[in-house]
């Protein structure tokens, strides 16, 4: 009996030491704990449920099952880097840490290790220049696209001119929050509006002085680059000083149900930029319901399905799955390497017909990544919160950013990075 037990233990140790199959490994650097968990959980659930659905419905991609390597970062940059080091040796195909701080740290490491990063709408904006940042992708849009599209919407509200107007940026006092400043300064010079900068320290639980500054400055619009509790407090404070909600526009990371629900009815009319349509009336949701939720395999409690951040997680996973498919086609092998995954991401093309096949009919914009352009089309739509029905709805079409301004800034910033790090043109 004793020998049998020892043999069983030895066998189980062998089983854990040797991979059971050559599954395609996708590390999921998520945060289900800590102060930013309310945002990290739905995003991670969306990613996991979509990948579970692909495994259950299609048997993986090209016959290869997808395997998630979960690692908890608690939105902590140091832990994020530890997660990267702990998982990269397991065949990690791509990293998407949902943190600008972690992304900044991983850019040189992942590039040296030939592993791509997908910082979808976050991270270093100038990484959109693939000539410099060969392994970083931030499609379908960047912070600078978002800033420009928000300003475009303000112009539409003001009948085409922002001359003499005042716009306040309430931002998380971090690398993330500071990203749009440069673009807004350029747009301020171009359109003649005054820009007022109002930083809020982490975590943003107390913002009384910030909103008194808003009262004093009387801006025509407020835009927000917030995350976590900062968003909820800002919306509550704005409501407390009766700032008109339809003139308060958040970036896509200040655009979830979590941000508006604590303020109750007072958040009615709040606007934010969106990467995709809200709601669950899409084929992909029906497939997730059928193959994952009904089968009792939901990643979390199943209560996040259809929320803004869950949908974004699903979208992120869909881009990655389609990139794997593209990489398999390019290289003619199913069991791709991280380097091949990079090629797949760089050649990712999804038109509306393909989105529809994938179950995302009119869900988001088409995409056509290239060696030079890792930032995607840079489109966004404005969504507005209806507190009565508890739903977001799009109030504009998907529109593009001011390419003249955004592209020039990307070129300027990425060129400086290339010069500092002796990086030659990666596309020539």
């Amino acid at each position, binding site marked *: 009996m004793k020998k049998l037990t020892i043999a069983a233990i030895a066998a189980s140790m062998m089983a854990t030491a040797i991979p059971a199959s050559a599954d395609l490994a996708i590390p999921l650097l998520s945060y289900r704990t800590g102060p*930013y968990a309310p945002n990290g959980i739905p995003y991670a659930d969306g990613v996991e449920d979509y990948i579970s659905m692909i495994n259950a419905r299609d048997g993986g991609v090209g016959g290869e099952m997808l395997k998630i390597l979960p690692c908890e970062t608690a939105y902590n940059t140091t832990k994020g880097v530890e997660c990267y080091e702990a998982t990269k040796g397991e065949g990690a195909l791509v990293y998407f840490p949902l943190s600008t701080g972690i992304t900044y740290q991983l850019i040189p490491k992942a590039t040296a290790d030939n592993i791509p990063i997908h910082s979808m709408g976050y991270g270093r904006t100038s990484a959109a220049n693939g000539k410099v940042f060969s392994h970083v992708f931030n499609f379908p849009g960047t912070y600078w696209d978002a800033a420009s599209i928000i300003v475009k919407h303000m112009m539409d509200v003001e009948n085409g001119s922002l001359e003499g107007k005042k716009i306040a940026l309430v931002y998380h006092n971090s690398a993330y929050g500071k990203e749009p400043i440069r673009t807004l300064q350029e747009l301020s010079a171009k359109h003649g509006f005054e820009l007022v900068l*109002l930083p809020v*320290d982490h*975590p943003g639980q107390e913002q009384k002085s910030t909103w008194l*500054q808003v*009262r004093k400055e009387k801006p025509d619009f407020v835009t927000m680059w917030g995350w976590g*509790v900062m968003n909820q407090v800002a919306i509550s404070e704005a409501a407390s000083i009766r700032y008109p909600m339809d003139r308060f526009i958040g970036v896509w990371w200040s655009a979830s149900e979590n941000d508006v629900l604590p303020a109750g009815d007072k958040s009615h009319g709040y606007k934010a930029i969106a990467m995709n349509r809200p709601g669950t009336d899409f084929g992909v949701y029906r497939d997730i319901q059928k193959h994952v939720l009904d089968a009792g395999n939901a990643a979390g*409690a199943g209560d996040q399905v259809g929320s803004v951040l869950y949908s974004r997680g699903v979208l992120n996973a869909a881009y990655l799955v389609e990139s794997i498919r593209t990489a398999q086609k390019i290289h003619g092998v199913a069991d791709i390497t991280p380097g091949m995954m990079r090629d797949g991401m760089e050649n990712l093309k999804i038109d509306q017909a393909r989105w529809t096949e994938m179950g995302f009919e009119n869900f988001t914009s088409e995409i056509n990544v290239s060696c030079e352009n890792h930032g995607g089309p840079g489109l966004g739509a404005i969504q507005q919160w209806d507190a009565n029905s508890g739903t977001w709805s799009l109030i504009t079409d998907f529109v593009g950013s001011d390419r003249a301004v955004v592209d020039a800034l990307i070129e300027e910033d990425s060129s400086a990075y290339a010069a500092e790090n002796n990086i030659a043109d990666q596309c020539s």
Partner: protein
Amino acid sequence: MFFLLDPFFYEIVISGLLAGVMYALVALGFVLIFKASGIFNFAQGVLALFAALTLVGFQTGQIPFAHLLSVFGFHVSHWGSGFPTIIALLFSLLVMIGLAWLIVQIVLKPLVNQEGIILFMATIGLAYVLEGVGDLMWGANVKELNVGLPEGPSEFILDTTDMFIDKLEISAAVVAIILVTVLTLFSAYTKMGRALRAVADDHQAALSVGISLETIWWIVWSVSGIVALVAGVMWGAKSGVQFSLSLIALKALPVLMLGGFTSIPGAIIGGLIIGLGEKLFEFYIGPMIGGATENWFAYMLALIFLLFRPQGLFGEKIIERV
């Protein structure tokens, strides 16, 4: 004196004082435990979070550990529409008292007569354990908290003075005044209050005259849990109940440095000075130096006070004769 003519000056003074009351509410919990047991309770912020999570759970009829139960095949998340607020508050109070008993039995009792630093380290562990248990019990999503307190700007103040003063913060100030009065009277004029102070002075001497250390600690952690519930309600009503609520403890530290770790009125006065100072500095000086000064300015203000009064404004002066 240009700022006296600024129409925003009076509003920022009032807002700063009211914010200070909110900080003081958190600081009070620290003071109570430190005063009675000499322990700096690192877990005070998490206690506030846990209390608020529990209250919302009872209010909304959430089943604790629902996610854990689903692993074993029980897919239930709510048992009904929840308790009315007053019943939910009472049950939350009982939970905090029960939690205090558990903390004393499991964490503190085995550490009687140990160095203060060991007890402090134990509360660090307690903070992380409680945060994890709170997550498992109630989930990590943002929860709306409504206990029926008035919210939004006071119409009367707005009409008469053109100032936006939030009714929730006025309510917090009233609650804090009541709490401080009750706690001060309890500490100074009741037998139990005197016993608490005796334990704080010397554990062994208190034991030798028949004071039960275990009971005293249970009482003080229960009172501190109740204060945490009040702080959790006030802060949670503002921003929703979520895990960042535990970080409000950071706002209490400069208040404690300034007001002293052993004085209940000190926590209030310290809170008011910090709230007022940081708001005035952020509003008038902040824009000149890039803003976001509130976090560090509060500590700077406290450090300046420490230069002149190392024991804080109302702290007990420690004199050790050699």
